[in-house]
């Protein structure tokens, strides 16, 4: 492992001022430290942000909830308010990683974990995300787990977080502190499409610190919500495809509000806005759900070994919404 300097930040402002180009914030470290061992991440400086007093879940303005960036995944999943008002979020967290990792990982760090594409993780091979311009061997190599939507010829990586998929469906916003001030970033706008430059995962600068995640006030569409993750083994596996969904029906059984986000299909949690639009005001039936899923997945452009994800995603959207409609 490359030698590095370690600094313990005492306050969020202190953390962003200590950070500089080439620095990384250290939260739970469950992904960063692995990547440092592999030589994928080579920070000169680690700024430890676990003592910033950001480990609380508090009421936010207008009835929402503010989750400190340092809250551990297990604690967040177990929070009674989260379980009651945003079940999709609790379920997403509990489907991620393993119990040990959830005890260690933080909310902020979860959002900033890197892709598990095997080429990204192996410094002896090219990867445009790790070394821009070096190429993308995944397209013709091991890509069963990789993207079917919004990818580019330069990168077919997927974002691995389950949590982020649920947050995208919930219209959550990040509270971000930087040396020049504070701002808020919707989770749906946090992640970049790979395009020409897949090396940057998000719109954040290296000195930007996520201090919290704000959930809007709960409503029927967040209370009637679920997270469904399909995976090769029952635990400790990234999703083949996941779906975060919420549904609010009018008394006549039509769709009043619907949220759908899909995970493990793109460089980002994929908010299925076309499907949502297709469903607005329509009857909440499996036939309508399948039609809407088809509208969304028309844009899919899979590779040979991940073509099954298109059908899988379609089935999962239908199943998730059908289940919500029946609840």
């Amino acid at each position, binding site marked *: 492992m490359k030698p590095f300097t370690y600094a313990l930040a005492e306050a969020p402002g202190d953390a962003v001022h200590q950070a500089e180009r080439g620095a990384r914030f250290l939260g739970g470290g469950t992904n960063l430290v692995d990547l440092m*061992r592999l030589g994928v991440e080579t920070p000169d400086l680690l700024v430890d942000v676990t003592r910033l007093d950001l480990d609380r879940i508090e009421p936010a303005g207008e009835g929402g909830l503010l989750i400190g960036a340092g809250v551990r995944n297990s604690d967040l999943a177990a929070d009674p308010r989260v379980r009651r008002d945003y079940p999709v979020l609790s379920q997403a967290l509990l489907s991620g990683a393993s119990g040990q990792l959830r005890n260690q990982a933080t909310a902020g760090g979860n959002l900033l974990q890197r892709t598990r594409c*095997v080429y990204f993780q192996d410094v002896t091979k090219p990867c445009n995300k790790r070394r821009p311009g070096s190429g993308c*061997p995944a397209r*013709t190599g*091991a890509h069963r787990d990789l993207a079917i939507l919004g990818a580019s010829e330069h990168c077919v990586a997927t974002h691995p977080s389950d949590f982020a998929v649920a947050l995208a469906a919930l219209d959550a916003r990040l509270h971000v502190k930087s040396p020049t001030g504070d701002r808020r970033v919707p989770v749906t706008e946090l992640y970049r499409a790979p395009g020409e430059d897949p090396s940057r995962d998000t719109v954040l600068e290296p000195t930007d610190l996520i201090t919290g995640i704000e959930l809007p006030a709960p409503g029927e569409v967040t209370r009637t919500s679920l997270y469904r993750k399909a995976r090769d083994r029952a*635990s400790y596996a990234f999703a*083949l495809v996941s779906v975060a969904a919420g549904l609010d029906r009018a008394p006549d059984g039509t769709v009043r509000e619907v949220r759908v986000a899909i995970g493990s299909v793109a460089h980002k949690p994929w908010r299925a806005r076309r499907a949502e639009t297709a469903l607005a005001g329509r009857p909440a039936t499996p036939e309508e759900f399948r039609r809407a899923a088809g509208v969304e997945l028309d844009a899919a452009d899979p590779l040979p070994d991940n073509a*099954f994800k298109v059908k*899988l995603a379609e089935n999962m959207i239908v199943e998730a919404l059908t289940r919500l409609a029946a609840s």
Partner: protein
Amino acid sequence: MTPVGAPVVRDEALEKVTGAAKYAYEYGSGEQTAYAWIVTSTVARGRVMSVGADHVLTADDVIAVLWHENAPRLGDVGDPVVAVLQDGDVHYRGQVVALVVAKTPEAAREAAARLPVEYEELSHDVVLTPDHETLYKPAQVNPSFETDTRQGDPDGALEASPVTVDHTYTTVALHNNPMEPHASTALWHDDGTLTLWDSNQGGHPVRETIAGLFEVEPGAVRVVNAHVGGGFGSKGTPRPNVVLAVMAARVTGRPVKLAVTRQQMFSLVGYRTPTIQRIRLGAEADGRLNAIVHEVVEQTATVKEFAEQTAVATRKIYAAPHRRTSHRLARLDVPVPSWMRAPGECPGFYAFESAMDELAHDLGMDPVELRVRNEPEVDPETGNPFSSRNLVACLREGAARFGWEPGPRTPRSRQEGRWLIGTGVAASFYPTYEAPATATASTDGNGHYTVAINATDIGTGARTALRQLAAEALDLPLERVSIRIGDSELPPAGLAGGSMGTRSWGWAVTKACAQLLSSGSPEVTVNTADDIEALGQYSRGAYGAQFVEVRVDVDTGELRVPRMTGIFAAGRIVNARTARSQIVGGMTMGLSMALHEEGVMDAAFGDYANHDLAGYHVASCADVGSIDVGWIEEDDEHLGGARTKGIGEIGIVGTAAAVANAVFDATGVRVRELPIQAQHVLS
């Protein structure tokens, strides 16, 4: 009062769960200790042209960089796998090309990562195909079976059979990943002797190999392996790690520790070859087999041949007058394949017992009855009588305990909510082997007895089983018997491999104890070579029947196994607790093979692309439902020794076929490749 068969808690349980048990990497610590880190090739074929040692030797903590131009010359022991750093040729991606030694593991790792290695790169070929141009017939298959066999006229019999099955099954590369990766600590003493703490499945072979490589007397090398965190075959022969640790200790004059990283495990310690297996069966309408043909294509490495005996078990399992088996190898630029739990029997039975299920389906027969109907009276290959064979009893008992519904299967006929449900069955077989061993039994004169033998407990509970056998032979309570194992200073014994460890060692242990009692002397040493030589001409093997329930999610194709039942017949069971653990472990590994494990070969780079336990899936706890294990009581007078058969491997054989057969029953989809995943059954 005999403790044999009792579920005795393993002797070292407390040490293991408290962390007090010391493993190979945990010895020899001190200020002088150095840490070695392996550098592996990044090309699949070619030659190392230069290693920029000077580039990293400038770092304070780096002590040495070894590569083929400066590494000590080694003696020839006839195994290219351990002839590390002797020339610049690169035979596969992930081969050892250099070794960095430093004062800390972190410094060694960083220097290894920064070490410049220049290659002359040549084109490579790493993909196994059924008609690969390099296919050849090896002289024999592991360890010394005939490559091809033929009885009668299989082609004519197939032609004449009213019902035939002809299908090809494929399996992927499977990688041994014991909890404890390969690790070694080496310390040369001033008198020219060597102490080696090494994680292996047999200390004496390591001693012989190291003595040969470093040209010292075997007696100058002491190998200690008191606790070993698993092996599955990968630690059955010495690997590069132990040689490199010894080499680094000699060059630096320090104690040296070396651990293989999880990523390096995928190229350096052997793996199960991928296979392509064509099975043809010809049967009468009543299910009796006329013909069995099993043709295998698999891979080996350019640097060393390993020929897995994939079709060998097929020769012995069912009656059929006409039969043929064959093995062909493609010589590829890949890491060296080797032993993995039930080598040959495991992938072979996946294919063969799947084909039997297909035959049962085509015949409209209960797959249990099909197997019973083809029960042979004598070993179908040799004509030798069976010493004992209770496959039918296992099938009957298993069917009863599992709740098997008799009759032909009706695929896709059961659904509960989202889940399609199916059940499958397969037979298991593993041969009973034994190797000569030496043991010493002694008494302190105050009623306490000690048995010493260089056996290796790789986590199976062998230590405890041997103590039970000794106590039985001495007719004493367990408390009055001690066992010493895991040290090459002790009397030599064979490998913990081939399911023959406890059987072979137990034979020597009981013999030594019996002679101690009869001789009246305070110490006796015995060897079993003559006893084994005197064994009669019987066909000896362990048998089993596996029953599996599979559930398949109709929307996602996710596959889950809520319950499995395995009934086995394996001679006397010495310890009901550790035996159960062995079989549950074997069945779990078979489940993992059926649904999860897959070495993904990257054709462009020539390595297995998924090389950690996040990317290479083994079954997690949540994947393993209820596993019901039982055995048929056998007292087989033709086994010799303590009348035991091996149980280390029988549990995995047949499991994957039972899962695949259950998947067919659940979904109506016959998947003829492993692992079976969502994309195969998604509808």
